């Protein structure tokens, strides 16, 4: 069994993923895949789309089983200033 890992902190991973999304992907993906899910591998900038989150994540894991990704729903978040994105790490209950 492969255990995925990352060199980044959670905040770095989320920020890099969001930057890739807004700088490279949002225009083309929101036109044709609005409401679907995208999973981004931040080192290669490769991305995987699915109608469901599980579908997109399964594709990403199949390609990069040792990586940890960043994911979001296409069109769900708007482009805020960099300081407002991924500053709030939810899982800690903060």
């Amino acid at each position: 069994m492969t255990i995925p890992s990352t060199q980044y902190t959670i905040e770095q991973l989320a920020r890099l993923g969001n930057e890739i999304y807004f700088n490279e992907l949002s225009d083309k993906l929101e036109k044709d895949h609005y409401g679907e899910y995208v999973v981004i591998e931040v080192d290669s900038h490769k991305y995987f789309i699915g109608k469901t989150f599980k579908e997109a994540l399964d594709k990403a894991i199949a390609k990069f089983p040792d990586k940890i990704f960043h994911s979001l729903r296409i069109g769900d978040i708007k482009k805020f200033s960099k300081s407002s994105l991924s500053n709030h790490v939810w899982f800690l209950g903060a």
Partner: protein
Amino acid sequence: MCGFLVHNRVYLPIEVFGFSEKLRRTFNAQIDTGFDGYLTLPLTEAFPLGLILHTTQQITLADGSNVTDLVCYGTILFNHHKVMCPINISPGNILLGMSFLRDIKSEFNIDFKNNRFCFK
């Protein structure tokens, strides 16, 4: 297999584990038809299960704010169903979402008279 109603909320007993079934634990999960994923677990409940982290996920909350969840892969056991799926690590209640209900392909009925619900 039946769940139960408490204060107009529907709860279902499930088992969850990560890389080893030996780590499985039982939870009473609230069904949330407004959640389109599979399962959310608070961090303290997730740690002992051996869940494997696969992705961060940017989520927009109802108030418009953005937060970052962790998402692991794990297995949910319910009745004779075994669902391998993404599990969101989020504070708050343990919630079962529509993706889980869709995957088990069952019909469920809520019996308000006896405060329980069952899957067919």
